[in-house]
């Protein structure tokens, strides 16, 4: 196949979910047919993304100039190894959560807008992975946020819809600041294209305006990622979602913020911004500890898990703050591990709620006897999250701590170890409350649907175990992605050389 045809695949990752969602809206009733259609679309996306991970490593980034415009003037979509990895993860998580949703409710009881909104959300997420300019990133964020607002309140009851308000208000302020930051970047560089910014930012090294811009970007993306002190909205809003959607949010949404931090501070901004990197590292350290302290204090499964997201985000962002190829490898590996583990844990939480009628740990119990497989899913993923060898979480934490020790960041490493121990402690709390304790007063509702839901969790555990035991090959891919992300001239070269490929048909 010619390279121009292949470049279109970069756009397909965004277009397929949009088109599929619109087609689904044509048939407004949720039926089995619609479900199999969604499953097919998500599987195709996953296959496409996995193929791109392999292809992009061999041949370099896929670059699509949308509409055939020359690069600094038009919109450009870039799929490099990191973006391809993230695309695979988003499709995989969406597929698992959709299948879990299918197991949870019958086709008739499903909310008719849930699947289309999930696909719109996915297209926004995918666009923010593949976009090659700052303003398009803003648009991608807005597509993603609008779908996420709608999904958040779609199935919430009268008592719960108010939990969406902090999420909405904070993100509205974040969007306004992001838009103003785009304007600031444009007045500074005269362009919003990443590849052009790279060249012009190098000329501004040492200029205080560049540092201000970097801090503004950190503020905007830190809010999206849930970094201290901007994490407040996360543990309030996530538990109000139905379990499969909560798992998708927990897996993907904050990780979009982390990905953009990797992309902007790794590729776009010059590496000389050491003061900003130090700032990133210290906010990450505080995020880890404060997030996990929140988790220890909570008494409901989904809330504990939501606070853990905040804490784990700290680990990934710490690796970005350490700023070296090895630290970036660790961050990318950690993202791969975390998305799958976290989504699976939220799915387990959903089964706990279904079986006990509540996820309040003072009212749950008896699940280890009733559902040993569910217990197995929980134990493996919880131990992985805490970072016990040889599970996937261990390797991520090991690499981050090794890099921190090499750079002599003793305090930050100490904080991360404290956070790991406390993570294990709060996971034990869920284990003791929901699984180990004897039968609660009311009988458990662990029916065939709950068994199917557990099966989806088992599938994710299998993938997670493969990542843990096959860590060497995953680290190789992550290292390739990290080196590519930090190779700024390589990025410029890949984007600009796409100008020489001629697209067939009419040109603007």
């Amino acid at each position, binding site marked *: 196949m010619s390279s121009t045809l292949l470049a279109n695949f970069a756009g397909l990752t965004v277009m397929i979910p949009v088109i599929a969602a619109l087609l689904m809206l044509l048939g407004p009733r949720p039926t089995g047919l619609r479900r199999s259609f969604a499953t097919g679309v998500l599987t195709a996306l996953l296959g496409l993304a996995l193929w791109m991970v392999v292809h992009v490593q061999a041949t370099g980034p896929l670059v699509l100039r949308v509409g055939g415009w020359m690069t600094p003037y038009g919109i450009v979509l870039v799929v490099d190894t990191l973006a391809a990895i993230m695309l695979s993860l988003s499709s995989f998580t969406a597929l698992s959560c959709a299948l879990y949703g299918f197991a949870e409710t019958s086709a008739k009881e499903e909310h008719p807008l849930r699947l289309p909104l999930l696909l719109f959300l996915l297209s926004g997420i995918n666009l923010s992975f593949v976009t090659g300019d700052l303003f398009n990133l803003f648009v991608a964020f807005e597509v993603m946020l609008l779908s996420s607002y*709608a999904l958040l309140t779609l199935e919430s009851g009268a008592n719960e819809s108010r939990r969406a308000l902090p999420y909405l208000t904070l993100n509205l302020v974040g969007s306004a600041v992001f838009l103003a930051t785009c304007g600031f970047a*444009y007045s500074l560089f005269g362009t919003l294209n990443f590849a052009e910014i790279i060249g012009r930012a190098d000329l501004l090294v040492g200029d205080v305006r560049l540092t201000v811009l970097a801090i503004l970007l950190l503020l905007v993306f830190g809010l999206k990622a849930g970094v201290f002190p901007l994490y407040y909205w996360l543990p309030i809003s996530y538990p109000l979602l139905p379990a499969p959607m909560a798992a998708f949010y927990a897996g993907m949404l904050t990780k979009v913020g982390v990905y953009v931090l990797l992309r902007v501070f790794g590729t776009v901004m010059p590496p000389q911004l050491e003061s900003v990197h130090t700032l990133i590292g210290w906010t990450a350290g505080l995020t880890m500890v404060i997030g996990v302290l929140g988790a220890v204090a909570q008494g409901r499964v989904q809330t504990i898990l939501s606070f853990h997201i905040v804490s784990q985000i700290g680990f990934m962002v710490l690796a970005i703050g350490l700023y070296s190829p090895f630290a970036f490898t660790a961050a990318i590996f950690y993202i791969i591990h975390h998305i799958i583990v976290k989504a699976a844990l939220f799915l387990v939480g959903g089964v706990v709620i279904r079986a006990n009628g509540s996820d309040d740990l003072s009212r749950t119990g008896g699940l280890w006897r009733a559902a040993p497989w569910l217990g197995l899913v929980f134990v493996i993923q919880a131990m992985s999250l805490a970072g016990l060898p040889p599970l996937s979480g261990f390797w991520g934490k090991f690499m981050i701590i090794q890099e921190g020790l090499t750079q002599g960041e003793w305090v930050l490493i100490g904080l991360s170890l404290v956070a790991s121990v406390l993570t294990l402690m709060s996971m034990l709390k869920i284990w003791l409350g929901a699984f180990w304790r004897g039968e609660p007063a009311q009988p458990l509702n662990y029916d065939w649907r709950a068994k199917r839901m557990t099966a989806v969790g088992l599938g994710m555990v299998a993938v997670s175990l493969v990542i843990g035991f096959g860590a060497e090959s995953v680290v190789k891919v992550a290292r390739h992605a990290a080196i590519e992300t930090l190779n700024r001239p390589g990025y410029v070269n890949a984007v600009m050389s796409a100008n020489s490929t001629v697209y067939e048909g009419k040109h603007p």
Partner: protein
Amino acid sequence: MTNQLEAALLVFVLFTAGIYLCLSRRFLRILFGFLILSNAANVVLIAISGDPTGRGSGTVDADGGALNRIDPLPQALILTAIVIGFAVASYLTVLLYRLYTDRGAASMDTLYADEAPGGAVAKAKEDRL
């Protein structure tokens, strides 16, 4: 950059007013605060499309010389931002209205009355479970 003091002042006033209103407890003020905020960001964009730095536009005339025009790109950005801002504002309106119909609340005080210290915390817990 010269002669942009008035734009800077306008942006400062708008952002301050917007964030102040967003932080208030009444729903209507939050809504107005957001509308002002999104327009403050638009003013930032329009301020950079002028020609105070002498930066010409991306367009050229037939001979390849730069035309003495205003940079059109920020205006394209504003158009997109206005559309997005409109969509978000309509969602915010609907959500606030829903909170009003669901809970009879038009301010944060009534919305979270059951969780206020010394309030009906215990009762709310009973209701939820």
